[in-house]
Structures are given as C-alpha cells and as structure tokens.
C-alpha cells in the first residue's frame, strides 16, 4: 500500500481563536427564521396584553348588563361584541389571556421538569430502575387524559391550583416516555461509550453529552402540549372544577358561548381564535427552535 503521510504542521504554542458558542449559533439561526420570529412576536404580544390588561382593557370584564347581551362585533362601546351576560368581549379576551396562559403553560413547564427528570434517569440508568419508573408512569398513561384530569381534580376539589396540579400529573407520563426513549437512543451512541471509557462519572456524562442532545426533542414535544392543556383546562372549568365563572378564561368562554353560535357565530368563535393563535404560535416557534438547535442543518 503506498500513500503519502500528511505533513504535521509544527505548532507548539496555543493558538487562541474565537469560536462561536453553540447557543449563540442557535440564537443567530433563530433570528433568521422568519416564521419563528413572527410567532415569537405574536406570543410576546399576547403575553404583554395579559400583563398590561388592567391598563389596556376598555371595560370591566366582570360586570355586564343583561340588556346588552350578544351584541355583534363592531357595536358602539363593544368593539368585539358582548357575551351572553352582556360583558365586553374585548376586555374579557384581554383579561382571559392571563388565566388561559397560566392554565396552558404552567402545567406543561412543571411536567417538563418532572417528566424529563424521570425519563432521563430511567433512560440513562436502564435495567430495573427503568422498569420501575416507566411502568409506574404507564399506569397513569393508560388513563384517557380528560378522565384522569377530571378524576384528580374532582378528588382534590375545585379551584385553579388543584386544576393545575391535575393537569401537571396528566402531562408527566407522555413527557417521561419521550424523554426515556430519546435518552435510551442517545445513551447507546458511541460518543457516550467513549465518554464512559475515559472515566467520566454519570453526572458529567449526563450534563455534557446527554442533556444537549435530548432536551431539544423533549422541549418540542412539550410545547405541543400547551394547546392541549388549555383545552383540558376549559373542560375542567366547564365541569366547575377549574376556573369558575365569572373569571374570564378563554376555554370557559368557549363553553359558555356554545349556544350563541347560532345567533352570534363570530362572537362565539373569538375565544377559539385566541386559543388557536397561541397554540399555533407555540408549535411553529418550537419547530423553529428545534431546527435552530439541530446543528446538522
């Protein structure tokens, strides 16, 4: 076999050079993604709307006049119409952002933390620990989510905190399953074996090698649960187990305006439009984030 050996450059000193960090690269790629940026703006606008609700809303979201029920969009004094109790839709939508975002995002964040922890531990350690954790999770996963949410919420009692707890428990199993499967895949790759062969401890390997490769897919999946969370919360509210009237919350508004769909379809659909806007913005932004995090692109 004849082949030339590549010449070894004579380098003794440390060559100091600037490398662009991984997260800076992610941020830069995200900024270039127009769809993701648009969704981020929409979400930011809705969050700001929720924060500054008392200053933005034109009218009181709670007080209504039965004389002015179900006014159409564009009525004087009611830019987006009024609901079945005569309350200003615009104000209710603005104030509703607060509760809806909380009911949508908080359970998902909590479940993300707890579910990821369980799934990553199960996937990394494997063996009996994996079996114990995942089969316990499967018990909860076997229940339909609505049923489980209603059962837990009913057992704990009415109220927002209990509803949030119930929703968190509902979302832990699917996130844990995704976390475990992704961790198991990454665990078997050669670079993790190489890290073990160089004597690194389990925590170091998880921190340096596993987390970066695993959190992306988990996060993308978790953000798709935000819209589910909002809908489930509305179901709980309808049964009187979550937010209670007259608190403005988009899901609850959707339910109470159901019968108005024949008389004022536009007004009845407005809370749904808000839920749709938030959900699709979350999903598209998480897709963009995942593409930006995927260095292979």
């Amino acid at each position, binding site marked *: *076999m*004849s*082949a*030339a*050996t*590549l*010449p*070894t*450059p*004579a*380098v*003794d000193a*440390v*060559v100091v*050079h*600037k*490398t*662009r960090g*991984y997260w800076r690269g992610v941020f830069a790629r995200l900024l270039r993604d127009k769809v993701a940026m648009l969704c981020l703006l929409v979400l930011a606008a809705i969050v700001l709307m929720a924060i500054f609700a008392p200053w933005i809303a034109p009218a009181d979201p709670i007080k209504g006049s039965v004389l002015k029920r179900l006014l159409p969009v564009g009525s004087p004094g009611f830019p987006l119409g009024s609901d079945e109790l005569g309350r200003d839709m615009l104000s209710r939508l603005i104030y509703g952002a607060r509760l809806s975002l909380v009911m949508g995002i908080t359970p998902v964040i909590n479940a993300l933390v707890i579910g990821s922890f369980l799934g990553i531990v199960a996937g990394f350690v494997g063996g009996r620990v994996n079996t114990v954790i995942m089969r316990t999770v499967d018990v909860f996963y076997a229940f339909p989510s609505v049923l489980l949410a209603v059962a837990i919420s009913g057992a704990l009692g009415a109220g927002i905190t209990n509803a949030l707890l119930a929703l968190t428990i509902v979302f832990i199993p699917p996130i844990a399953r995704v976390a475990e499967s992704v961790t198991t895949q990454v665990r078997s*790759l*050669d*670079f993790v*074996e*190489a*890290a*073990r*062969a*160089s*004597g*690194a*401890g389990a925590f*170091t390997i998880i921190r*340096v*090698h596993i987390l*970066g*490769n695993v959190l992306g897919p988990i996060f993308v999946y978790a953000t798709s649960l935000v819209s589910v969370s909002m809908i489930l919360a509305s179901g709980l509210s309808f049964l009187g187990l979550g937010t209670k009237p007259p608190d403005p919350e988009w899901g609850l508004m959707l339910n109470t305006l159901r019968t108005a769909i024949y008389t004022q379809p536009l007004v009845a659909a407005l809370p749904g439009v808000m839920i749709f806007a938030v959900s699709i913005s979350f999903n598209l932004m998480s897709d963009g984030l995942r593409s930006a995090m995927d*260095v*292979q692109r």
Partner: protein
Amino acid sequence: MSAPLLEVRDLVKHFPIKGGLLDRTVAVVHAVDGVSFSLEAGETLGIVGESGCGKSTTARLLVHLIEPDSGRVALEGHEIVRSSNRQRGGVPGGISINRARRQMQMVFQDSFASLNPRLTVEDSIAFAPRVHGTPEREARARAQNLLAKVGLEPARFAGRYPHELSGGQRQRINIARALALEPRIVILDEAVSALDKSVEAQVLNLLIDLKRELGLTYLFISHDLNVVQYVSDRVMVMYLGKVVEIGPVARIYARTGHPYTRALLSAMPSMDPDHRTSVPPLAGDPPNPIDPPSGCRFRTRCPHAEAVCASREPLLAETEPGHRVACHMLHAGSGHTAAPRAAA
C-alpha cells in the same frame, strides 16, 4: 523476560437471553469464552475474525465498558479490579478501573457516532482531560496540540462541529481524542473499516507514525486481512468466542496453522487475474453462539474434522516458538490422524 504490558487470562462473557413468563434466562450467548493473550509493550496485535466472533466484545471487556463474567486482565502485572481504595487491599498490587482507563483508550468504528454532535472538536478532545482534573486552558492547549499531531490544523478545525468534517477527518479526531489521556495502549476497533481506501491508507500511516513517535501499543481489530498484515506485528485469530491461533504476522500469513485461518486467507480476493479465487473455501455461516458445537467449535465447517474434534476441545498450545494454535491436527498425541507423532 519482563512482564507483558497487558495480560488477559480466561476472559469470559456470556449474554443472557431472557424469556418466558418471569424473564428467566432461557439461553446464553457465548460471546467471549475463555480468551487469553498477552500484549507486549510497543507491538501491534491484530485481532481478526468473522462478524460475531467476539472481537469487539473482547475490546469492550478490556476497557470495562462491559463487565466480564470472569477472567483476569492485568496491566503491567497489576490486576484491574473494580473497587475503591478500601477493597483494593484485598488484591495485592491491584489497579482500579479508573486508573486503568487512563492507560487504555479506544477508537470506535463509526466516526460520526463517536463524536457528540453538540460539542466542537476541541471540546470533544478536551473532555477526557478535564474529567480527570486538568484545568481548562491546559486541556484546550493539549487538544490543539493533538489536532496538529493528527494532521489537522488547529486554527481551522478546533472550532468545528463533527458534521462539518469528512469521515477521515473525524476518525483523526477520534484518534486525537483517544490520545488525550496519554494512554499506553490504544484499542482500535475496526477504526479504518468505514473509510475510503485512500483515506484508510493515510489514517493507517498516521497510526504507524503516532505509534513510533509516542511509544504506543496497539490492539488492532479488523476483518480486513490486508490491513492487519500491513499494520500488525502479531496476529490473533478468533472464532466463535475463542482464540484459535496467535502468532507473528509473517508466520501466520505464510505458514498458517489453523484450518480456519487458512480458509480466511484463501478467501481473500486475488489480485492476480490469472489465478482468481473461484470457490469460497468456507461454506455457510458460523454456528449459533447460543449453542456452540461441542469440542472444537470449528469442526462443523472444517474439512479435516474427525471424532476427536467433537469430543475434546483443542487447547491453544504452542506449536512453534511464539506461535500457538488450537487444533488437534498440530498437537502431538491428540488422537487426530494428521497429528504429528508424540515425542517418545
């Protein structure tokens, strides 16, 4: 004679197959069944065999990525034990796995899967030294020096990600990563098998240069007999979890002992168009490692098999100085009709 750098004695690893109602062990894969060999400082030992013969498992057993069921691995005479300081008192002169790992590093076959896609090249190489307490600046400096040593300019390559490099470049980085802890032994598990021929040649020459420059010892696992011949000083042939022949490379390639080795060598495609290899000398696949044949494991495919081959397992015995073969035909007084006469 000084003690060999690495001594492996009776390494055994069986993988259980679980099944049945209560996940009991219903069968066992005899992946590695009593492998013994020694590795002298400064040499390259090539390990060849078919897929599934246990070469990669043996390599992983050596660096304790898989725990052996039994057997003894000794580094410079110190047995590698999995224990803390407390228990090491039980085995005099033992060495812990963590310390042994600093002396033995491994290069894997898949150059892409061997590198964390989220880390830059420099970070990947510097990871192992930093785990063992080297400060960051020094670890980076070492990473950049190693990049230069494997023929990649640090200014251009240190900040890159694995997907921005070619297969040959990635394998060089894997080699640099293996050298980061300044080991004495480097185990190359099919390290060049996935590369194009020209790149393979460059990487092989790089390995030879590095060995000479840094005083390394190689364990070179491959299925490519040409490559093994080019790179090795001694060769070990494995079949179905057992060592069937071990000896100096020239001896094995010229005056082969074991019928399996002979079949392997004659199965190499011929470079001479007038003497083409027409009929493969070995038929069929190796037997199932879950239920290996009794006695000599090769007897089911061996043209010279006799009754004694089924009843008694041939030991790996020395037929010439430095050349050991596990075959009844070459052991005096074994009972095989082709065996030499026993010394009176």
